[in-house]
């Protein structure tokens, strides 16, 4: 196909934009393989002169990255499972189960979206202390277990389930729980994946709340550990980049594999279509 000027301009700009977006991440990978001190020179190098895995070895052997990785993995998984349970049930009910006060309750929940989460942080911390849940994963998970956004997402999607199908099942004598598990869940499967992806990503990347709640090093997740590490090792550029690689790459890979679902969730409720 003969390249026309418009095509060149558009694609050229896209290359530049994508390049700018990716460049810091690519540089991060490059530096993580450099020998310590190699990047603290002028002009700054783009590629390592001697490719080394030393930084990763240091991270996993001496800084305990493996534990932080497993912590993040475990926590994100638990959060995803819990969020799926709580939000899907609620979202379906708001969409398809007529109960007294349903609409009013939903409006109240929507109003809660306006309030920034940080308002609740400090009293919630004190509440957790009285419950003895400080420095525990339950304390970390609590705020992410149920969220208005998740409920909203599921509700949007569940509204498209034909009510006749549900009515027919009720006429046949099926209980609500049976209907939910046998009929509704399979239909909701795509949105389940979306919600799961969202929750997993958000929990993995969350660092403020775990930073506040967790005092024990051994319970730290990757972002929290990295934040701590970066304040101790300001000079060790290459080590920090390796830490960033370990924190970013898994979720990036997950996102690329499941981006269809993630983006769909993003769009739900924002734009019809």
């Amino acid at each position, binding site marked *: 196909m003969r390249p026309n000027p418009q095509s060149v301009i558009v694609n050229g700009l896209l290359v530049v934009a994508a390049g700018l977006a990716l460049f810091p991440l690519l540089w991060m990978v490059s530096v993580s393989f450099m020998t310590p001190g190699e990047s603290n020179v002028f002009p700054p190098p783009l590629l390592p002169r001697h490719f080394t895995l030393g930084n990763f070895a240091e991270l996993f052997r001496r800084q305990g990255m493996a534990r932080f990785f497993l912590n993040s993995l475990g926590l994100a998984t638990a959060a995803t499972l819990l969020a799926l349970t709580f939000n899907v049930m609620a979202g379906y009910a708001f969409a398809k189960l007529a109960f007294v006060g*349903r609409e009013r309750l939903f409006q109240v929940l929507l109003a809660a979206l306006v309030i920034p989460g940080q308002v609740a942080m400090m009293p919630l911390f004190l509440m957790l202390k009285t419950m003895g849940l400080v420095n525990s994963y339950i304390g970390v998970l609590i705020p992410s277990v149920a969220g208005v956004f998740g409920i909203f997402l599921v509700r949007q999607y569940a509204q498209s389930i034909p009510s006749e199908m549900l009515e027919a099942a009720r006429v046949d004598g099926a209980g609500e729980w049976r209907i939910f598990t046998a009929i509704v869940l399979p239909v909701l499967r795509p949105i389940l994946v979306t919600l799961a992806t969202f929750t997993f990503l958000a929990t993995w990347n969350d660092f403020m709340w775990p930073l506040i709640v967790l005092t024990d090093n051994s319970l730290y997740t990757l972002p929290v550990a990295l934040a701590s590490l970066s304040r101790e090792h300001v000079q060790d550029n290459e080590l920090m980049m390796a830490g960033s690689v370990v924190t970013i790459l898994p979720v990036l890979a997950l996102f690329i594999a499941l981006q269809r679902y993630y983006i769909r969730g993003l769009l739900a409720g924002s734009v019809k279509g």
Partner: protein
Amino acid sequence: MTARALGTSTAGWLFVAPAVSVIGVFFAVPVFLALALSFTDFDIYALASLKNLRFVGLGNYLLLLRTPLFWRALGNTLYFVIVGVPLSVGASLGAALLLNAKAARWKPVFRTAMFAPVVTSLVAVAVIWRYLLHAKYGLINYALSGIGVRPIDWLGDPHWAMPAIILFAVWKNFGYNMVILLAGLQTIPEDLYEAARIDGASTFQQLRHVTMPSLGPVILLVTILTMAGYFQLFAEPYVMTQGGPLQSTVSVLYFMYEQGFKFWNLGVASAVAFMLFLLMFAITMAQLLLSRRQGVA
């Protein structure tokens, strides 16, 4: 109510109960507690013994209005919002328009690449950017020196620290809005463009008279969402600058965090949180009213 309807209603309540209770107990209750705290002088002494707690009514709010650092934080946050939101939305719009162009190839690849920063952990990329912005060994200054610009001490100079954070925030977030805008662009019916082309409109004119009006509501939505997010600026100053240099990057939430978790002045910190909430609420309402008046929403 029939027996079945009752059954459905009960089931409905049972289904929403877990989620709603969690939200009620672990979000609503703390919010009300925070409101109550904001009327007291809860501090480290009160943490030790509640006997040391005093009720001060609106005292904390008035104290904040007299605190220079609070106004500084407000100013910094507004600076971030006023400069950052147009930049971010503009970048997203530009990227979305490019991706939507018929001439664009490998759209999925480009879209994924530009969205990648969104899913990265903020701490991890802030660490990267801290080195990119290094005055001597950072690649950004190196690139700028290539076009003859003297090295800027991004994170050490009070004038450049906030712009650095804005740049970082735009880079991290533009993919998010880009996807929303792209979806909006894709809903514009092709016939409208066809009609414009028949009338002899150039690409630019099509953009101005077909794309933009149709995209209005989505742009408004994206702007409101971005604004709400940017008012809550916190993690970037926390990781990259710790509020410095010379407190030029202290945002309202960073100020709240310091008061709350560094000094345990929970009374003052809660007051800050509510003032921020009121501000955001007012601005969002104003935006909606304004746009309704203009017939956009």
